[in-house]
C-alpha cells in the first residue's frame, strides 16, 4: 500500500488547475522537466519577499539571511544524496554544466594522450560532447559500451570496455530514452579496481530513486533541479573532496577567490572554488524546498509508485499490436520512462495527436542521436511519469494512443 494519495498530492501542483484542449492536463513529460508544488513556489516567493540579498558578500541583514538560506539549501542537498560534507556539493545551472565542469576541469587536467574515456551509447548529448572535446584536445580515446536488444549494458561489455587503459567512465544512472537503470554499482567497482574515476549522470535517477553517493562510491554524481520539482537554472555537482581539491577552477571571477593580485590569484576553499559569480540563490532555495517535499513523500515510496504506474501502462500498451516499446521488459531494471513508436506514424505526429487529448509526451531523438542511430530509429515518443501522475492519467494516455492511427487514415 502507498503511504500517499496521488490524487490529493496532485492538488499541491497549481498547473493542473487547467484544461488543455478541453480536457484535463495529463503531464507525461517529466523526463524533460517537472511541475512545481505550491510548497516550492511559495518558498521562492517567501525568500524574495523577505530575505533576498547577495550571499557571502555583505555584513548587512539581507546578505546574511541570503547566505544562511543558500548554505541551508546546500545542506539539504548534502543530506539528500548522503554526501560527507557540503564541501562536496557545488551548485551549477544544470546537469549539462556539471558535466562540462568535470570535463574541463578534471578531464583537461588528468586525461593524457592515449588514455581511454568510456561512456555508453545511450548517453544524452550532454554526456557525450564534453568527452569528445576532451578526447580531441588530449589525443585520448572515447570508447562506447553498447546495449543488448532490451537496452541493457551486458556485463561482458563492461568488462571488455573498462580496462587498465581507462581513466574515466561517465554513465547515466538511468537512460533518458529507454528508462534503463544501468548497473552503475558494478561499473563503479570495475572502474575503481582498474584505477579509473566514475562520473554518474543522475539527471533521470535522482528525482525518482533514492541516491546515496557514499554507498554507490561514485566519484562524481550530477543532476538538475528542474527535473525534481525545483526551478530551472539550478543544478548540482557532487564530487569526492579529494578529487575536487586537486582540480583547477572551471569558471573564474567573483566569490571563488582568496587573494587576487595584479598578475595572479589564489582560490577559495571548496565548494566556493567552483562557484564563480553570483549564484542562483532563489533556485537553490527552490531546490531545498523540492527536496523537503520529495522527502515528505519518501523516495522509496515514489520509486514504488512509479513502478506501479509503469507496470500498469506497459500491461495496457503491450496489448496494442501496432505499438512498439523500447527498453528492458524486466521492471526491476527500468524507471518511469516508456519510449515507444506506433507503426506507420512518426513520433512527432503522435505527440501532436496526444496533445489534442490533453496528454503531453515528448517526441524526437531526446538529445541522444547516437543511441537513435544505434537503435535504427529516427525518433521515438516518450512518456515519463512522476509522483503526481495517476492511473486515470494513464487511461487517458492509452485512449489517446488507440486513436493515433485513425487520425492518419489507418484502420486502427
Amino acid at each position, binding site marked *: 500500500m502507498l503511504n500517499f494519495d496521488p490524487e490529493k498530492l496532485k492538488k499541491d501542483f497549481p498547473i493542473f488547475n487547467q484544461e488543455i484542449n478541453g480536457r484535463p492536463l495529463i503531464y507525461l513529460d517529466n523526463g524533460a522537466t517537472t511541475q512545481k508544488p505550491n510548497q516550492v513556489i511559495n518558498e521562492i516567493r517567501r525568500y524574495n519577499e523577505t530575505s533576498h540579498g547577495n550571499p557571502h558578500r555583505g555584513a548587512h541583514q539581507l546578505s546574511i539571511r541570503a547566505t544562511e538560506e543558500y548554505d541551508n539549501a546546500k545542506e539539504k542537498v548534502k543530506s539528500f544524496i548522503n554526501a560527507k560534507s557540503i564541501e562536496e556539493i557545488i551548485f551549477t545551472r544544470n546537469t549539462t554544466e556539471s558535466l562540462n565542469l568535470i570535463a574541463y576541469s578534471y578531464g583537461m587536467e588528468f586525461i593524457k594522450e592515449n588514455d581511454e574515456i568510456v561512456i555508453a551509447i545511450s548517453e544524452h548529448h550532454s554526456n557525450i560532447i564534453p568527452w569528445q572535446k576532451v578526447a580531441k584536445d588530449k589525443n585520448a580515446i572515447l570508447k562506447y559500451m553498447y546495449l543488448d536488444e532490451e537496452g541493457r549494458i551486458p556485463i561482458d561489455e563492461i568488462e571488455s570496455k573498462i580496462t587498465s587503459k581507462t581513466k574515466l567512465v561517465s554513465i547515466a544512472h538511468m537512460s533518458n530514452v529507454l528508462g534503463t537503470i544501468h548497473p552503475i554499482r558494478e561499473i563503479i567497482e570495475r572502474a575503481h579496481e582498474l584505477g579509473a574515476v566514475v562520473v554518474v549522470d543522475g539527471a533521470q535517477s535522482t528525482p525518482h530513486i533514492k541516491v546515496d553517493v557514499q554507498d554507490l562510491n561514485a566519484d562524481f554524481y550530477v543532476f538538475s533541479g528542474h527535473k525534481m520539482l525545483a526551478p530551472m537554472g539550478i543544478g548540482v555537482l557532487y564530487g569526492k573532496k579529494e578529487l575536487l581539491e586537486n582540480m583547477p577552477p572551471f569558471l573564474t571571477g567573483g566569490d571563488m577567490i582568496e587573494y587576487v593580485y595584479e598578475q595572479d590569484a589564489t582560490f577559495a576553499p571548496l565548494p566556493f572554488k567552483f562557484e564563480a559569480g553570483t549564484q542562483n540563490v532563489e533556485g537553490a532555495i527552490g531546490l531545498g524546498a523540492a527536496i523537503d517535499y520529495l522527502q515528505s513523500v519518501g523516495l522509496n515510496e515514489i520509486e514504488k509508485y512509479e513502478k506501479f504506474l509503469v507496470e500498469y501502462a506497459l500491461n495496457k500498451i503491450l496489448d496494442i499490436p501496432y505499438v512498439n516499446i523500447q527498453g528492458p521488459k524486466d521492471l526491476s531494471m527500468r524507471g518511469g520512462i516508456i519510449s515507444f513508436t506506433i507503426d506507420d506514424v*512518426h513520433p512527432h505526429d503522435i505527440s501532436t495527436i496526444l496533445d489534442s487529448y490533453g496528454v503531453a509526451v515528448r517526441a524526437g531523438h531526446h538529445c541522444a542521436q547516437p543511441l537513435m542511430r544505434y537503435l535504427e530509429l*529516427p525518433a521515438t515518443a516518450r512518456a515519463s511519469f512522476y509522483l503526481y501522475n495517476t492511473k486515470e492519467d494513464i487511461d487517458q494516455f492509452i485512449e489517446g494512443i488507440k486513436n493515433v492511427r485513425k487520425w492518419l487514415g489507418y484502420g486502427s
Partner: protein
Amino acid sequence: MDLNSIYTQLIMEHNKSGHNKRALCNPDVCERGHNPSCGDDITLELKLNGNIIEDASFEGVGCAISQASTSMMIDLIKGKTVDEALEMVEKFLGMIKKEITDEKELEKLGDSIVLQNISNMPARVKCAVLSWHTLKEAVS
C-alpha cells in the same frame, strides 16, 4: 486546436501515397534538409533542363506534415522554372507567416494551401517549411 484542420484528407493522401518519394536517376541537384530537434530528414532531388525543373523527388523520413508538404511542393514545382519555383517558396513561407492571406494569391500554391492552418501550431511550423527551405538552398 482542431486536429481535423491539421490532418486533412489531402495531407493524409500525400503522406501515404509516396508518389514523389523515390530516387531520381542522375539528379542534377541533391539537397539534404534536416530538423535536428525532431528528426525530419529529407533529401530533395532535382533534374534540371536549363532553367526548368524537369523532374523532382524526395527521399528520407519525417512526420506526416513534413512528408505531405514535400510531396505537395514537388507536384507544384515540376515543369516550372527555377525562378518560378523560388517565387512559390516565398509565397508558401509568406502564407505560413500569415503575411500573405489573399486567397487569389494563395491559390497558386495548389494543394499546399491546406497547410495554411499549420501557422496556428508553432511546434509544427518547422515540419511544414522544411522542404521549401531545402528547395531554396538547392537552387539559390
